[in-house]
């Protein structure tokens, strides 16, 4: 198992390097200009000077290698010195800086991560907690009223876009009823009951929307997987042995049905971290998703490059984790 993991990790290094170069190349070929958003009154010569100061005129390979050096060498060294308090090498080494804010990209991401993790990962957890029982029971009572209701709600969760649902919720719960705020306050720090309550109130609407979507998706997988397993011979055997229905469904069928669902859940996690771009935009959560979208709009290449690369890392990583989980859950699968 360990050798398998190490081998897979070693393989992922060239894959990631290739991905990072491909992203860089794509960004470079896209017609984009970080000075495009400047007011019209700023003359072209000034824009040209600014582009030069940002280093846009340098050859592609130089810029790519510079990014690699800053991201793979300087950033880890900085992180290490922050962590240990020791200094490694030149403390003034250049970090990956955003073109729009001139701040280190890693710090921008660190600013944005808490709200994305809070809102999006909580909605993922809640979504899973809803999806599994719903999927199991819907399959067990296939064509029953619960199954129909479950299917109906998942269809809504799947098909109604969050930019519509989000605005409807704001109009009802923020404008008419005044229960929840429509703008997420990222400066809020939880220090006591009041602030905890405020934090929960501002999370209710975005978490509900995202949880509904996640639950809809995962419950359909769970239901399908359960239906497939319910008709297997081992289920009849378990019943023949005199096992209780509860034991048959939960210990035998559900456990076996979880296998493909675990893969779906694991592969969905990178998307969680990539943020829910639209929901973040509607509730002004300003997490990772909002950072990515605003950077694309302003042609902020270093931020887009770093973020997309981090997503690539997460996808490769969670693919590996899904494979490992598979091996652990299914004794028939062995990687050695």
């Amino acid at each position, binding site marked *: 198992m360990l050798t398998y993991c190490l081998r897979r990790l070693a393989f992922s290094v060239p894959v990631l390097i290739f991905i990072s170069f491909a992203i860089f190349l794509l960004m470079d070929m896209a017609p984009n200009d970080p000075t495009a*958003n400047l007011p019209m*009154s*700023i003359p072209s010569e000034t824009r040209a000077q*600014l582009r030069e100061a940002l280093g846009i005129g340098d050859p592609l390979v130089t810029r790519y290698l510079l990014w690699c050096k800053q991201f793979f060498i300087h950033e880890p060294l900085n992180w290490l010195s922050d962590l240990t308090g020791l200094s490694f090498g030149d403390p003034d080494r250049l970090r990956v*800086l955003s073109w*729009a*804010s001139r701040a280190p990209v890693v710090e921008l991401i660190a600013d944005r991560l808490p709200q994305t993790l809070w809102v999006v990962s909580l909605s993922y957890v809640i979504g899973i907690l809803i999806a599994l029982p719903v999927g199991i029971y819907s399959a067990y009572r296939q064509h029953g009223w619960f199954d129909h209701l479950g299917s109906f709600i998942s269809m809504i969760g799947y098909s109604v876009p969050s930019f519509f649902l989000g605005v409807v919720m704001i109009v009802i719960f923020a404008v008419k009823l005044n229960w929840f705020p*429509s703008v997420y306050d990222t400066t809020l720090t939880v220090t006591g009951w009041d602030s905890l309550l405020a934090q929960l109130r501002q999370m209710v609407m975005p978490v509900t929307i995202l949880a509904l979507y996640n639950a809809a998706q995962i419950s359909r997988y769970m239901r399908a997987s359960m239906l497939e397993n319910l008709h297997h011979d081992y289920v009849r055997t378990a019943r023949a042995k005199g096992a209780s229905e509860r034991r048959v469904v939960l210990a035998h069928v559900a456990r076996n049905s979880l296998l493909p669902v675990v893969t779906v859940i694991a592969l969905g996690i990178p998307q969680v971290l990539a943020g829910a771009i639209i929901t973040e935009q509607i509730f002004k959560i*300003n997490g990772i998703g909002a950072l990515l979208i605003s950077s694309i709009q302003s042609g902020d290449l270093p931020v887009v490059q770093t973020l997309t690369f981090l997503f690539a890392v997460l996808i490769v990583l969670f693919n590996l984790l899904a494979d490992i989980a598979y091996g652990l859950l299914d004794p028939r699968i062995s990687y050695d």
Partner: protein
Amino acid sequence: MPPVFKHIPLAALSVSAFTTAAYAERGAQGDLNLIYWQAPTLLNPYLASGPKDSEPASLVLEPLARHDETGKMVPWLAQAIPTLDNGGIAADLQSITWVLKPGIMWSDGSEFTADDVVFTANYCMDAESGCQMTAKFTDVEKVEALDPHTVKISFSKPKPYPYAPFVGLEIPVLQAAQFADCMGPNALNCSAQNLAPIGTGPYQITDFKPGDVVTYDINPHYRDGDKPGFAKVTIKGGGDASGAARAVLETGEFDYAWNLQLDPQVLAQMKSAGKGQVVSSFGTAVERLQVNLTNSAADLGDARSTRDGGAHPFLADPRVTKALSLAIDRSTLIDIAYGDAGRPTCDVLAAPAIYASGANDACLTQDLNAARALLDEAGWTDTDGDGIRDKDGVSMTMLYQTSVNPVRQTTQDLLKAWWAEIGVAAELRAIAPSVFFGGDQSSPDTYQKFYADLEMFTNFFPGNDPEPYLNNWACTAIPTPENGWSGMNVPRYCDPDYDAMLAKLGNTVDIEERIAISKQLNDMLMQAGALIPLVHRGEVSAHANSLEGVRMNVWDSELWNIADWTRAK
């Protein structure tokens, strides 16, 4: 309530006058929440990407003089506006001398002096710094401190309007001590300084998350002991204009929302919730059609959209552009797409009011018959019966491009329909703003390459001197392949008379004469059909009913007088 209140006579007028004064106590108004849906990303206006950054910075950084809400210059860090009469401007017009107010402190407690002003000038004039305000320092030869409170700016040639450096929102004074290590190429890498500049303004930055939120508290060394009223200010970013408007007008979570260019009906409906009001102010911005006077046919190759490629087959005829302009119903366009944020105009120099020509106002009323007659007169008739006019095998079909923006696409649709009525066809195109307004040499879709017949965007000039703006249409400002498609003369208009008149403007000091020449230049552009002005655009913001003291200002920062803002009791 202070005890002195008892001695005030109970006449209603004086009581109400006094209540304002009684509340004018530093920090007594609590918290103020503003929403800038385009989030600030950088708080150094010299490197910033527009008002979304420089306005939040204006709470901290201040210039020597600002413009008030009527566009008038008011001294800010300076004692008075230098003029020829008070000797602040030299008789040869080659220098201007600013005298600073005494006793002004930076928020870190150090003294503000003329050296800071000199430093800031040198900081921006360094070509390697990436400073975006270099145009403000055009012809500046030297900036020197005569004594700790006097700054002299010398120009290399006589400057009839010497108020470009250090007047207005975009060119405040930076603290020399803080930015000392940020000269030249280091300017862009000074993250800590650029994200949290130290200033002389009413507030200081306590926390800034780029692209998300800025929080401020009171600058303890602010010069006026009774101000500012609000103790804490938060500027939140993110989302879109309608979400920002909703947060002020419908839910009341925020006190002020900036830049609300929204469908007029949507805004009116939100306003009816009764929680806030919409304010607008008109500056110099005009949404206009740029007419390509040169041929943009693709088969011309490198000569495409250049004067070498020849004149446009029909748009170079002023009768045609006049007909296109007459076919537009500007009032209807504004009702549908702009609401409070627009007024019809036929001049590209529509403001300040003293500069508005008004000689071209015939286009304000739509007249389809007159438009058809003009086209007939120019020889364009529908010979092949396809509904589109033609002449010598050339059909009047135009490619009409602009940036992606709901208001602009609505405008495109309306204009296309009106032109169809006079027998002119338009093919519409919307390009992503970062491409359209970008300077990417390899992209065929930039507004400067102008591989189309018409294009639409807004331009404006900051402050109230139109000379740099009118320079945009000089022959030398035409974008060409040779100059890397730079320059703002997008219509490729070139008239020696216009250039001669521009030169005259550059040497004229008398304000009345400057106004007369500016109007004449505007009229020349209009009569040549180089541009078709559509809408004089205003800035629209909203504030809560409880917020008092807002003097919406398009000439400077909207937050220019934030120190005076109070909460109604």
